[in-house]
């Protein structure tokens, strides 16, 4: 346990000193300005457009954090064997990987706190500056909800990427497979949703339909479009849905991380 905490601490220090991590944090703070500029082109739902831009930009930045900070860190550790700096008694492989995952998650949490602050500032400005007709239903606190729900999704994503990293042989493989997995997790939910459409169902053989549904279960529901759209329109997400969302992502993250531990304890380094 002590070794895990120590590796977590080292990972956090390592990441927060990276210029790219500091860039992501500053970029998230700048995102509301981009949202303000972009929304000027629109007529009525200015508040909605601002939240759309903010949600999309922060999602891209946090996904980039996972790809370019988490994957390159794991790539260096595993690909260039620098994990041997840690992997000596009393540090076990499990303690090392748990520490790395906890450190990466904690740094992602820091980015989420920045997202929360930036989101709440954007909403406060929108509420102060625009009249009701331009900001249907937007209320203070939605930046907080957006950041929390998005954070939960990104824990799933991080766990999936860590699992890919401990299985892949080098940085190039890690990046390619992680990008492919993120792409599939973004695009599969709408495809599955489309397959449930009566019109589409008539043209798709049942075998293909059930195969796509099965593949859909392999990836977490990272398509946060529904949540972002609901919040942008000021529609409250009910507590049951939030609870299910949390359960789904924590279970998925746990599943992926346990798999990662099993694979990592058995692989050649």
């Amino acid at each position: 346990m002590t070794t895990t905490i120590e590796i977590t601490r080292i990972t956090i220090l390592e990441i927060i000193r990276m210029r790219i991590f500091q860039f992501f944090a500053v970029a998230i703070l700048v995102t509301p300005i981009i949202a303000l500029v972009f929304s000027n082109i629109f007529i009525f739902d200015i508040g909605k457009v601002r939240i759309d831009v903010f949600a999309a930009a922060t999602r891209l930045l946090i996904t980039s954090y996972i790809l370019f900070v988490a994957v390159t860190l794991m790539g260096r550790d595993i690909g260039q064997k620098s994990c041997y700096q840690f992997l000596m008694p009393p540090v076990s492989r499990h303690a090392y990987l748990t520490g790395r995952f906890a450190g990466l998650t904690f740094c992602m949490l820091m980015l989420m706190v920045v997202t929360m602050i930036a989101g709440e500032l954007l909403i406060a400005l929108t509420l102060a500056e625009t009249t009701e007709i331009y900001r249907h239903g937007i209320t203070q606190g939605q930046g907080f909800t957006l950041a929390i729900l998005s954070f939960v999704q990104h824990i799933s994503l991080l766990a999936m990427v860590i699992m890919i990293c401990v299985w892949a042989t080098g940085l190039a493989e890690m990046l390619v497979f992680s990008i492919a997995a993120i792409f599939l997790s973004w695009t599969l939910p709408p495809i599955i949703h489309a397959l449930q459409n009566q019109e589409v169902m008539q043209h798709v053989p049942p075998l293909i339909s059930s195969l796509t549904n099965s593949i859909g279960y392999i990836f977490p529901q990272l398509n946060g479009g529904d949540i972002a759209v609901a919040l942008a329109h000021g529609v409250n997400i009910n507590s049951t849905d939030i609870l299910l969302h949390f359960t789904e992502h924590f279970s998925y993250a746990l599943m992926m991380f346990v798999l990662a531990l099993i694979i990592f304890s058995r692989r050649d380094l």
Partner: protein
Amino acid sequence: MQRMLWSLLLLATISYGASRMLVSDSSAILSTVVQSGPLPSVAQQIVAGPFVGMVADYNILAVFTIYDQIIYKLPESEKQHAWQQLASYLQRTSDIDPLFMDTYRLSSGLLAYSEHGAQDAIAILAKGAEARSWDWELPFLAGFIAYDSLKDSEQAFYFMEMATKRPGVPPVAIGLASRMLTQQQGVEASISFLHYLLTTMPAAYHGQIQRRIRELKESAL
């Protein structure tokens, strides 16, 4: 070698500048957005991934571009096709983000007053009325367009009845709906509603509505 590199840089700069200037003068490139049209809704949702809201925003920007082309750039022969593309973009937006208010403002404020656009506008507003189940404005607008442009009293009655049952409906809307439903006529009612619509639309979009007001006033004389 240095001299050759400078010459190449100069050549590239000139050709880049010339191509940029030619592009900004070309109406053909600007009109590609009109020619190509939107992707089907399902494809848009798949391509959008978690950025559904942004794709809906993009569709609305495409509507602005098409409207600008209809008013200032396209020849008369191409306008009908452009209006159809504008309607398609609005329909796609209402499919992927049915709560987005700009879609319905532009449907009732622009599309409804285009040639053959009223039925499309009503279909889009009906979708919005279903999604925004708390909002009286969308069924009210659909009812008004059905009454005013299509002269379809039955459809107008259906939407007006829906509007008057929703919370927050203002007396002016109820009064107007009542006049339309009981009398099923009245240029005056149409004009007063169109004036109301003018207060909810930005000045740049007043042209079509004012033209309709003029037509109604002339027909009343």
